[in-house]
């Protein structure tokens, strides 16, 4: 029993990280039809900015250090994403493939730069003692980092749903996902919504970057890329453009990976996830909760 609880919470924690990266990807795709390969770079840059901030505050209390790092990570992710949209993606407004290619170039260049600056080896992350401790839950000792990741992802999901369903800008984003041409025909500046989804997506990816650093206890330049691929899989399984779909798919993918890796053999879980993606796309091309167009 305790093993099952442990696996479930670990899987949910992993799913939480996937969701935080996938949410932005899904919104950006839904509104702009851009497959954002630079999303992993937002994640990586944010986690290194957060790490540098906490190094600079080495003498402060661990909790203050962690919160400042969290803030720095989110702000860096958001700013970097907003800037990339404004400088690189906006000029290519009419050229779809061009936008995707630019994000590919940005991802390659950024990860290389981080590797050049910080080296390619993983670096340990300092965190409050409570984080690396465990809490008892249904007889299992659960690492607190898992709980933090799950709570944070749940909060982000609620905030995003509130934003999308209860605010004016959320309405514009939702309408844009449905029919972008109609929204701009009604005289609404969709361009501003583009910047907004990039800012939101980048902030969420930055949050994921900091939480992943505490989750794994280290940061390394390559993790952003592997996160990005997992997030792609989550977004596509959940249905491109659907936030709830991404959340559902993130939970499924995280749990499937953990349970199969434990009960079958290491690696089988990862394998099963890609097979699941292929099956979902062939049976339901729009994804679990995606609108079939």
């Amino acid at each position, binding site marked *: 029993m305790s093993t099952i609880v442990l696996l479930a919470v670990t899987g949910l924690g992993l799913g939480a990280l996937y969701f935080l990266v996938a949410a932005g990807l899904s919104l950006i795709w839904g509104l702009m039809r851009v497959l954002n390969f630079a999303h992993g770079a937002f994640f990586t840059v944010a986690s290194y900015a957060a790490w540098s901030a906490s190094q600079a505050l080495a003498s402060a209390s661990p909790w203050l250090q962690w919160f400042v790092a969290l803030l720095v990570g989110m702000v860096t992710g958001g700013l970097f994403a907003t800037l990339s949209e404004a400088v690189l993606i906006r000029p290519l407004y009419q050229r779809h493939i061009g936008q995707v290619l630019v994000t590919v170039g940005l991802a390659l260049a950024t990860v290389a730069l981080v590797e050049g600056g910080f080296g390619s080896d993983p670096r340990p992350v300092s965190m409050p003692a409570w984080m690396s401790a465990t809490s008892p839950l249904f007889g299992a000792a659960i690492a607190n980092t898992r709980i933090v990741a799950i709570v944070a992802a749940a909060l982000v999901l609620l905030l995003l749903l509130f934003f999308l369903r209860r605010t004016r800008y959320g309405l514009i984003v939702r309408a844009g996902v449905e029919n972008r041409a109609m929204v701009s025909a009604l005289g609404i500046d969709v361009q501003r919504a583009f910047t907004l989804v990039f800012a939101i997506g980048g902030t969420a990816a930055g949050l994921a970057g900091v939480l992943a650093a505490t989750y794994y206890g280290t940061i390394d330049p390559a993790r952003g890329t592997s996160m990005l691929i997992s997030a792609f899989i989550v977004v596509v399984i959940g249905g491109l453009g659907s936030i709830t779909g991404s959340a559902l798919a993130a939970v499924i993918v995280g749990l499937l990976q953990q349970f199969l890796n434990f009960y079958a053999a290491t690696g089988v879980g990862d394998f099963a996830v*890609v097979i699941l993606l292929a099956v979902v796309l062939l049976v339901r091309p729009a994804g679990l909760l995606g609108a079939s167009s």
Partner: protein
Amino acid sequence: MKRLRGGALVLGVIVLVAIVLPFLHVPLPGLMEGTLDSPGTLNLLGLCFVFGALALSYDVVFGYTGLLSFGHALYFATGVYVTAIALARWHWSMPQALALTAVVALVLPLVLGAICLRTREISFAMVTLAFAEAGSLLVLQNPFGLTGGEEGLALGAGVLPAALAGVVNTRNLYWIALAFLVVVCAIVWWAVNSPPGRVWQAIRENERRVAVLGLNPYLYKLGAFVLSGFLASGAGVVYLLLQGGANPQVTTASFTLTLLVMVVLGGVGTLWGAVIGGIVYEYLDFRLVELSNASALQNLPAVLRVPLSEPLFILGTLFIVLVLFVPGGLGSLFRRANRRPANA
């Protein structure tokens, strides 16, 4: 017609020069580490040829047929790993190993392509990515100790025929790579100018219209996918010979992304563009590493030194600049330069 003959002449001269290159004991300061006939230079040139051919094979699906596949690394890796396993693990002879690789290289893209092509556009990109990821995970898992997992699989001594082994025989490998590139160019040139090749380009422009004309786009797309996968596996075999081993790097999604970069760098949907893109990319990727160790660079302040010593940073930035300002790729620069006098 006259232009074609002139072009063929230029090509013939380039190929001839490339053939006699290993006999030239000429130093190329700045461009290459050693003299032209040194094994290091020949190996690098051979790798450039392989990547030129590989980029061209990717251009068949991406550039000519308009299918954005994210799984091309899988077919390249098939060539690398099937041959390596047959040679090093099962101790098969070279012809046997090549025969097995050829069969797998035909069947795998046929089966996976038949499945993937049931979807389109972004779904297609994702399904191909999924299968390639599955392949990558399989290689890393090291099933039955066949692939060597993360460490890769070295061919070791005595596995290759004597004419292909050892530093002394690098020039033989160079010629094989050159011959392979020429053959791939010929095949792709012939294929894209054949009637099915014209249908590929029509599918890229407007698939529905092709269907309305009574042709079955699915079969044509499958044909392009299989040809492209088969040629990529061939490139994998030559790469294996040049490198003397297999490494899991070639199975990753990042590897497919670099192929995408190569093709866009040179010019999408053009024969010479893709080849030039592949050659230039591989050359820069290799040479920029050496540049990063150059003494001139070591004296620069860290703000400049760190970015300049990362080849992928330079290539990524170059790529962004090209996408933003030269949408047709490097190939279009040449064409523009060629056209100007004609217009005047």
